[in-house]
């Protein structure tokens, strides 16, 4: 298999990872599309140096998250605001209303977190263990543990406040 074919097949296999990251880190369709393109471009650029020492999904998460965070930093320097009331749930044609509402709440909860915590939350929801999260984010294992328990507390306290 040629390099290009191999790349295309990997991206197709893991496209939902890119989709989820773009949804977590953007707030409108245009930004989401731009970030999606940026991520594929960065993956293609780094594909040459990807030596399969890491798992493909780990490499993808790492590149995608770094691209998203870099883009947010750039946007912040440019003074753009991110609002959480315009979450785009593309690919939802087949979802029922109740599920879409729940999904909207999930994204709203994630969007309330800071940029790094959004990534940690996403990885946790993706079923990654602390070791894998540490490998993807570059944080230490204990730091991952501490941050994740804080995220869970944060989510819980928000729920409690809403219920009160």
């Amino acid at each position, binding site marked *: 298999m040629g390099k290009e074919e191999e790349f295309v097949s990997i*991206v*197709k296999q893991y496209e939902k990872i890119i989709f*989820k990251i773009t949804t977590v880190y953007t707030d409108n369709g245009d930004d989401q599309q731009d970030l999606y393109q*940026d991520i594929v471009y960065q993956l293609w650029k780094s594909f040459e140096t990807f030596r399969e020492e890491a798992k493909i999904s780990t490499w993808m998460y790492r590149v995608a998250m770094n691209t998203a965070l870099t883009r947010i930093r750039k946007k912040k320097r440019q003074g753009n605001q991110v609002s959480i009331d315009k979450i785009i749930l593309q*690919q939802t044609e087949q979802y029922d209303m109740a599920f879409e509402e729940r999904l909207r709440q999930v994204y709203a909860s994630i969007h309330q977190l800071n940029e790094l915590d959004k990534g940690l939350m996403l990885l946790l929801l993706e079923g990654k263990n602390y070791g894998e999260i540490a490998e993807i984010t570059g944080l230490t294992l204990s730091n991952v543990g501490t941050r994740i328990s804080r995220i*869970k507390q944060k989510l819980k306290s928000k729920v409690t406040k809403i219920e009160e």
Partner: protein
Amino acid sequence: MEFEDIQATWAQMSDQLEKQKRLTNEIIMKMAQQDYKKRFDKIVGYETIGAYITYGVAALILFNFRDLDTWPLRICGIVTLVIMAVLPFYSLKYLKELRNTDIADKNYKETITVFAQRKQRYNRLMKLSVYLGFILMIIIIPVVSKLFDGDDVFAAPIKKSWLWFLPIAFVFYYLFTKRVVGCYTSNIQKAEQILKETM
């Protein structure tokens, strides 16, 4: 929303996404070459604006061509029109070809070779444009002078105002050309770098 609820909704979404795969090979490779194309969009934008202005002036000269009533004036008019018609056309054509170098369709060697050939051709055109632009700046004087002032510079002594205009125009042209060529060269080099990184 409890973490467990979030987790369940997320898992359900993942299942749905799995069924909705929609990226094609073509889309993926097109995304990979986006950044490369962006490098050229700015230049192409400037060139397009320049081309509209140039063609506007050329149309004005063409509609009033009958006012150029002597052979020297007509020759100046024709040369002016030819330069104004040909330069923007080829500049845009070559730039678009450079931008559209297809990194998805060819192998590394082919892509770099095609890019190098197109870059060389565009560089030659840029050099030629500098010289032709300089010639244009001189030969447009009799044309403009006749069409807008009614003066034939070949029949009467040149006006003092033109003597002021020429040195200022030369300095402006030199500085402008230097800046534009520098900007274009830098953008093309950056695109080439992206191309090399990408391939």
